[in-house]
């Protein structure tokens, strides 16, 4: 009899909490709570997040606020020099920092494709925790959704950052005048080439590594040095060329760049040569463009060189009255040649 009962017992439901994320993790029940408690709170918890309320209740800030939102959909999730987790934190922090504010808090929303290994999630969380600790930004609210396999690419992250203006921000690109100097904070094109070569399985040796890094310390150092900064922008998608075009448009000036002054690592240079790409158009994730006065350029360089993330900062050009094109590059013959605007993602050339 007992034997028979056992034979007809309902099967124990699959808890689904073993090695991979299932749809059940996203549906607000026990699995979800366990995921949050065991993994998320242990790595990035703080007094605001641990409450697990519908909204984070935050103390008032003295200055005006900066608010910035971003989504991270990088493939592969892990690449030389970084991963989606640190990228999400640094990307959020950098948007706030280059706007002239001090990053304080951020939200973090996960869109997870069913089947993502829990181990992958834990690795990303560890990276987020490290990046948050490095920058001092606190993850104060979040969300987790799981979508059916095939409707997302493993993992997407969405963030919103909140920063506080303690000092007035730089006036911005409209204030550029002829003679101003243009700087980049480090070698360009690293993130885009790192991700592209990794994604496409191109075996460059050494492989290009991403520049993914926080820029808040460099921006803070510039502010503390009280130097006349005209504008700061992180050169993400579209690369340095996109920033130059935006500034040229807003200032009605021409931005003139010297090709032989552009800092490019041998790995990025080689990969770009092989694929027929121009590093000026390739994305960065921890490199900014700075405009300052002619007189202050060397002081700005000195300050940037004192910060580890920007110790290879270089002057790459200057602002002139509007010339033949909004942005020009001087190449081998020293003639100013127009630089066009980035058009979508760069596609490798045939030969």
């Amino acid at each position, binding site marked *: 009899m007992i034997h028979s009962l056992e034979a007809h017992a309902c099967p124990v439901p699959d808890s689904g909490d073993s090695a991979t994320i299932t749809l059940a993790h996203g549906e607000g029940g026990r699995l979800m709570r366990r995921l949050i408690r065991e993994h998320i709170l242990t790595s990035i918890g703080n007094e605001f997040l641990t409450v697990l309320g519908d909204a984070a209740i935050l103390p008032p800030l003295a200055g005006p606020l900066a608010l910035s939102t971003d989504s991270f959909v990088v493939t592969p999730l892990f690449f030389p020099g970084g991963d989606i987790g640190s990228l999400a934190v640094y990307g959020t922090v950098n948007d706030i920092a280059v706007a002239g504010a001090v990053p304080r808090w951020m939200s973090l929303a996960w869109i997870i494709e069913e089947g993502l290994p829990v181990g992958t999630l834990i690795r990303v969380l560890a990276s987020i925790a490290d990046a948050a600790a490095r920058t001092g930004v606190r993850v104060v609210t979040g969300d987790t959704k799981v979508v059916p396999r095939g409707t997302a690419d493993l993992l997407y992250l969405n963030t919103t950052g909140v920063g506080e203006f303690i000092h007035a921000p730089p006036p911005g690109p409209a204030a550029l005048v002829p003679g101003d100097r243009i700087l980049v904070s480090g070698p360009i094109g690293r993130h885009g080439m790192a991700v592209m070569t990794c994604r496409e399985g*191109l075996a460059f040796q050494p492989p290009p590594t991403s520049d993914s890094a926080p820029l808040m310390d460099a921006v803070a150092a510039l502010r503390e040095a009280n130097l006349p900064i005209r504008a700061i922008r992180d050169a993400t998608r579209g690369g340095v060329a996109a920033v130059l075009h935006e500034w040229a448009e807003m200032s009605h000036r021409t931005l003139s760049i010297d090709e032989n002054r552009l800092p490019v690592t041998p790995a990025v240079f080689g990969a770009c040569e092989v694929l027929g790409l121009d590093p000026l158009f390739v994305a960065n994730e921890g490199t900014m463009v700075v405009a300052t006065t002619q007189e202050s350029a060397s002081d700005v360089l000195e300050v940037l060189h004192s910060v580890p993330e920007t110790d290879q900062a270089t002057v790459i050009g200057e602002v002139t009255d509007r010339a*033949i094109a909004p942005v020009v590059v001087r190449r081998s013959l*020293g*003639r100013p040649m127009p630089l066009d605007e980035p058009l979508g993602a760069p596609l490798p*050339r045939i030969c």
Partner: protein
Amino acid sequence: MKYVDEYRDPNQCEQLVDTIQRTASRVWTIMEVCGGQTHGLLRHGIDQALEKKVHLIHGPGCPVCVTPLESIDFAIELAERPDIMLTSFGDMLRVPGSRTSLLRARAAGAQVRIVYSPLDAVQMAVTNRDRQVVFFAVGFETTAPATALAVQQANRLALRNFSLLAAHVRVLPVMEMLAASDSNLVQGFLAAGHVCTVTGSNCYEAFANRHQIPVVVTGFEPVDLLLGILECVRQLERGEARVRNCYPRSVHAAGNLQAMAAIDDVFEPCDRPWRGIGIVPLGGFRLRTQWARFDASERFPRTVQPARESPDCRAGDVLMGRIKPTECDCFGTTCTPENPLGAPMVSAEGACAAYYRFKSQGTRSGVDLHGIWKQ
């Protein structure tokens, strides 16, 4: 970086410009055959630096630009079939067909994958046995050897789900067509360095002799380009018509014998329509009969009708060097890299895109019309 920095040296560039100016006693008309060379000349402003002594005509050597509309339409039709994964090189994706591009087709759900080598397409066929993988093979003799190797590899692996949409083209026949044209004013050719890496330079001897025209094998960096132009100008001044190799770090007179053998094993020359130019006798490669089982146009029925080019687009005149891109009424107005009417506005190597990129924006009227073709 070795092999790059020394060929971009500003001092050497200035010296070469100066030497060319002093060597040329009159204005010479020289055609750079390859789109990569056009890109380099315009990117560095070499055409402007030399404009008092050298008129540069931009040749038809952009393989993406000359791929016929009907091939692109057929590639798109294949990509839209649910059982087919279409693979090609990156800059082929933006080229407009008659109704859409591969990039737009991909956005609409077609399976289109960028590959960096034809062998990657073979690998995709290995890992996607339930799908037909078609490689849209474009390019001159430069890329044809790798395509040939891909076919040989697919044969070794006995793959039944790999095939080729072969649109490879050959450079010498189109140069022959240009040089033989009554309206030709080209006085010297800069032969395409990458193509010559495969074919060698010997193959131009008979051509140079027959047409009494210098052929200088030329690379792509500014110093390479200036050295090629200088050699061409020197020959023209002396009344010579020789084949000279100014790209010896890459090109040998006999070429790459293994690469040529791979091409010869898999392909045979055939007449081929070039977009904007028309049929070029022996201007293309097709699969030899014994490899026909890898021919996508045999394997899959074609339903698209041959399409007509935009009547306003003058890509053919540009590709044949009859006009500069800026002389086309559509240039920069109805035809831009965002909305190209013709292929030369798409590829990084296309003459129209190179002009759009590197010439003063919004100053079309300032461009000198050289009048290099006889009426």
